[in-house]
């Protein structure tokens, strides 16, 4: 006979996993980032947590796995398995509104809509087609890109021509 796991157990495990933060963007939780895909408790009572990597080479993923394991154990579960879900690939569109608000609050410009690709070969673009982010500090749209690549895979570097402050932008992917 299969006994249903009480809903509140799953919710407790999910809440613990969801509250784990990204070591490189510590203002964001895994739930804010949208990388926490689902949480289940199997018949043996093991909590199974599925997370999706942001970038193939994201070095924070190993830390986040261990943090999830620790956080779920801390709310009373003895058996935890953190699993990788590769498909579908993560996109910045999964960052929640709350996550976007927190990024702006911390001076980081949130991503716009991710590029949507038709099936077939990726078309060649000879000119940058990127959207110009607004300055998260003064709100001006008069900004320029300093570098497409920044301190982490997910961010680019910009400068506001209005308030002259440099800022980071989470790239659309």
């Amino acid at each position, binding site marked *: 006979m299969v006994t249903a796991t009480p809903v509140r157990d799953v919710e407790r495990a999910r809440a613990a996993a969801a509250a784990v933060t990204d070591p490189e963007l510590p203002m964001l939780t895994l739930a804010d980032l949208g990388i926490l895909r689902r949480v289940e408790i199997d018949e043996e009572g093991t909590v199974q947590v599925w997370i999706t990597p942001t970038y*193939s080479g994201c070095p924070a993923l190993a830390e986040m796995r261990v943090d999830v394991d620790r956080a779920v154990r801390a709310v009373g579960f003895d058996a935890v398995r953190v699993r*990788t879900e590769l498909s579908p690939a993560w996109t910045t569109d999964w960052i929640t509104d709350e996550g976007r608000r927190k990024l702006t609050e911390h001076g980081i410009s949130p991503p716009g809509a991710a590029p949507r690709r038709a099936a*077939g070969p990726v078309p060649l*673009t*000879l000119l940058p087609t990127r959207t110009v982010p607004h300055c998260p500090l003064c709100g001006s749209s008069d900004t320029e890109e300093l570098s497409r690549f920044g301190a982490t895979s997910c961010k680019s570097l910009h400068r506001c021509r209005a308030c002259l402050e440099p800022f980071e932008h989470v790239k659309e992917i």
Partner: protein
Amino acid sequence: MSGDNIFTGLVEEHQGDARWAFGTGFTDALAGVDTTLPAGVDGADLALYCQMLGDDALVQAQRLVQWVTDAPELEEEVALANIALDLLGQARLLLARAGQADGTGRDEDAFAYRRAAHEFRNVRLTEAPRGDFAHAVVTLLVLSGQRLALFGRLADSTDPVLAAIAAKGVNELAYHREYAVSWALRLGDGTPYSHERMVEAVADVWPLTGELFATHPVEARLAAQGAAVDPATVRDEVHAVLTRVFTEATLAAPAPFPEGTVAGRDGRHTPALAPLLDELQKVAREHPEATW
């Protein structure tokens, strides 16, 4: 942190950030992924194919990080390091898949650190000596162009793990190519001197491009089953992309890719690979008990 000994403080169990000083010890990049082989696919073949794609990325990443502290601008150094990190991530997933597919259970470190040069399956262009910045631009343009075309098709592989790795990789390779294109345009259509350096780089890189489109028997077998992509099938697509870039960059239209034969995919490499691996593997070989 206890006492005033920093080392002791770092190696103790902690709840704070210091616990990551020596890494998590976590090495399974594919933990919890369903790793069943697709019906009819030979595990040894699939493992070799994953090593080919994984080694291309690993060796290219190691070459790219040689620009760190040595690029023309800090921003370019950061860009090349970021591109290398993406490729390293792709290599980790592919090599982990290789160890599952051939049944040996070898992890990514076993492949990266404990194989000799003749066991690597990368194409020779990935191991070519670094050269100047124009060489880096042309090499990245060719390699990202080929890999983007391959991965675009590999996203439909009958192996769900390869399909997922490829679908993810396409998003990254698209901006790798975009970066290489932007520099090809600036240097090719820049000053007479930058133009000349690009022409020299193209001349040096071109003889190595044929191998990128030569089909290994493993690729042919797996492609027939829908698990792999025969690289010969992306040859025209990649050439068309490069022709557009070269034309826009005021460079002469690229010569046809030379007829290449399988070499690196069978473990036959240039003398440039062994010293690159010495650097890559030194710490792991000297400290076999280390974790990171």
